[in-house]
C-alpha cells in the first residue's frame, strides 16, 4: 500500500513532464519544412492548391498553431494519435502493430544485461585487482566501446553467413508457417542476435556500476558489523552487501530506459525487425511527421511505465524510501 501510493505519486509527477515533451515536440515539428499534406501530395504525384487546401482542412491544419496544439492534446487524451498518410491507417494502429517486437527485444536485452552485469560485477568485486577482475573489467571496457550496429553486422557475418547457426534478420520465418511452440522458438531464434547486440553496451554499464557499488558497500560500517558477527564471507555478501549494492543498478534501469529504446532504432534496422524503432526510422525517411509524433508519445509512455515499475521495485528493496519524503 505504502509502495503503491509512493509509485502513484511519482506517476502523477511525470504528467507535467509528458505534457512538456508533447508540446515541445509539436512545436519543434512545426519548424520542419513541409507538413503531412505536402508529404501526401508528393506521394500522390502532385496536385493543385485547392486540393491541398481541402486536405489541410480535413487534417485540421488550417487553424493557428496554438489551436492545432490544443486539438492535438485533446485528441491524445482519447488516445487518438491521428492518421498516417503514408501507411493509410490510423497512427495508433500502425504503432500497435509494431510494438510487440520492440517490447520483446527490450525485455530480453534488459534481462540479459541485468543478469550478466550483476553476475560479472559481483565476481569482479570479489576478486578486486586480481586477474578475474582485470579480465572482466577489460571485457566491460571493450563491450562499452563497441558500436552496437557494427557488432550486429559482424555477428551476422559470423553466425548467419559463415556458421549459419542463426537467422540474419526478421522477426519470424514467414515461409515455414510455424504455430504454437514452434512459432515461439522461431521468434526466440530470431531474437538471439538482436538481444546480444542491444544488450552488450548495457551489460558493460551494469557490470561497471555493480562492481563499483559492491566495492562501495563492502567498505561500509554495517559490513564490518556483519563480519564482527562471525558470518561467513558468502553470507556477508549474499545477505548484507548484494541487496544494498543493487540499488544503484535498479535506479539505472529507469534512467536508461530511454537510451535503450533509442538503441532499438539502430538494432531493429540492422536486423530488419518490424518494431517501433524501425518505424521511427522509416517515418523520418518518409517525412511522416504524424507517425513520428505518435512514436515519440508512445515511447515517452513506455519510459514512464518502466520508471513506474522501477519505482515500485526500488521501494520494495529499500524501506527507507518513503520515510524520507
Amino acid at each position, binding site marked *: 500500500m505504502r509502495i503503491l501510493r509512493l509509485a502513484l505519486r511519482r506517476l502523477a509527477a511525470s504528467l507535467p513532464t509528458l505534457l512538456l515533451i508533447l508540446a515541445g515536440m509539436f512545436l519543434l515539428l512545426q519548424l520542419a519544412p513541409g507538413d503531412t499534406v505536402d508529404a501526401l501530395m508528393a506521394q500522390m504525384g502532385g496536385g493543385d492548391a485547392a486540393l491541398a487546401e481541402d486536405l489541410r482542412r480535413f487534417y485540421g491544419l488550417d487553424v493557428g498553431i496554438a489551436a492545432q496544439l490544443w486539438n492535438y492534446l485533446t485528441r491524445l487524451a482519447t488516445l487518438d494519435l491521428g492518421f498516417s498518410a503514408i501507411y493509410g491507417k490510423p497512427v495508433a494502429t500502425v504503432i500497435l502493430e509494431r510494438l510487440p517486437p520492440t517490447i520483446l527485444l527490450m525485455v530480453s536485452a534488459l534481462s540479459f544485461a541485468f543478469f550478466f552485469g550483476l553476475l560479472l560485477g559481483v565476481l569482479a568485486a570479489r576478486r578486486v585487482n586480481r586477474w578475474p577482475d582485470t579480465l572482466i573489467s577489460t571485457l566491460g571496457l571493450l563491450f*562499452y566501446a563497441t558500436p552496437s550496429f*557494427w557488432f550486429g553486422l559482424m555477428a551476422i557475418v559470423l553466425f548467419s553467413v559463415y556458421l549459419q547457426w542463426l537467422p540474419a534478420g526478421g522477426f519470424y520465418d514467414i515461409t515455414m508457417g510455424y504455430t504454437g511452440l514452434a512459432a515461439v522458438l522461431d521468434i526466440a531464434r530470431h531474437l538471439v542476435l538482436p538481444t546480444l547486440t542491444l544488450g552488450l553496451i548495457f551489460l558493460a554499464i551494469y557490470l561497471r556500476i555493480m562492481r563499483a557499488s559492491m566495492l562501495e558497500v563492502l567498505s561500509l560500517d554495517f559490513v564490518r558489523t556483519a563480519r564482527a558477527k562471525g558470518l561467513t564471507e558468502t553470507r556477508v555478501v549474499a545477505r548484507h552487501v548484494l541487496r544494498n549494492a543493487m540499488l544503484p543498478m535498479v535506479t539505472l534501469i529507469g534512467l536508461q530506459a530511454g537510451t535503450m529504446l533509442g538503441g532499438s532504432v539502430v538494432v531493429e534496422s540492422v536486423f530488419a525487425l518490424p518494431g517501433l524503432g524501425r518505424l521511427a526510422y522509416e517515418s523520418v525517411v518518409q517525412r511522416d511527421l504524424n507517425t513520428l509524433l505518435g512514436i515519440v508519445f508512445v515511447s515517452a509512455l513506455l519510459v514512464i511505465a518502466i520508471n513506474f515499475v522501477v519505482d515500485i521495485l526500488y521501494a520494495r528493496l529499500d524501506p527507507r524510501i518513503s520515510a524520507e519524503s
Partner: protein
Amino acid sequence: MRALKAYLRSPAALIGSVILLAVLVMGLGAAWFYPNDPLGLAGRPLQWPGQNPRFPLGTDPSGRDIAAQIVHGARISLLIGFVATSIAVVIGIAIGSLSGFYGGVVDTVLMRVTEAFQTLPNFLLLLVLVAVFGSTIHTVTIAIGIVSWPPVARLTRAEFMTLRTRDFVQASRVQGLGDAHLILREVLPNALPPVIVYASVVMAVAILLESALAFLQLSDPNVPSWGNLIGLGRNVLRSEWYVSAIPGLAILLTILGVSLVGQGLNDALNPRLASGR
C-alpha cells in the same frame, strides 16, 4: 601536480592516451597523409586489404580508398565528439548548477525540463532534430550536444546540492559574498572533477551517436564519416565484410581510448575510489 603523477601512474590512462594521441595525429595530419579528396574515386572497387599495395585497407563498393576515409574520418569523429561534448557540458553545468544551488522553484522547473529530455529516448530525439533541421555536419553536431546534456546537468546538480550546504560555502555566505562568487569560486571548482570525468562518457556517447546516425545514412553524406562507411559496407556484407569491419574497429579503438583516459582521470581526480576499497 599530484593528480598528474597519479594519472601517469595508471596503465589505463597511459594506454588510453596513446590510442587517443594516435587518432588525434591521424585527424590532424589527414590532409598531409591523404591530400586528395577521400570521397573521390581512387581505383577498382572492392579490392581486399593487402591485395593492392596502393590501398593497404582496400577499396569500398564505389572504388574509394578505405585508408583515406579512415584517416579523414578520425578528424570528423574527434571534431563532432569534442564540439558536441562541449555543448553538452556547458548546458549541463549551467542548468545543473542553477538547479542545485538555488533549489526550490528554480530546481523544480529546470528538473522537469531535464526529465522531459531524459524521458524522450535520446536517439529518437536526435532523429526528430535531424528530420526537422536537416543533416549537415553542423546541425548533427549541435543536435548531438542538445540530446547529451541531461546526465551532465543531473550530476552537476547532485554535486551542487551536497556542496552548497557545506560549511565553507556557508562561511563565505556569512562573510557577505554574493551568489556569483559562491557558485563560481566556492562550489564549482569542487563540483568539477566528477563532471570532467563524466565528460569522457559524453564524448564516447557523442561519437557513437554520430556513427549510428551516419550508419543509417541520416548524417551528412558529404563528409568521410566512419559510420557512413559501415553503412555502405552493409550492402556487400556477405562477401566483402571488411568494408564494414575496418571503420568499426576504428570507432571501437577511439571509444576505448576516450574511456581509458576518462578512467585515468577518475583515478587521478577521485583518489578515494581509485584504491578500490
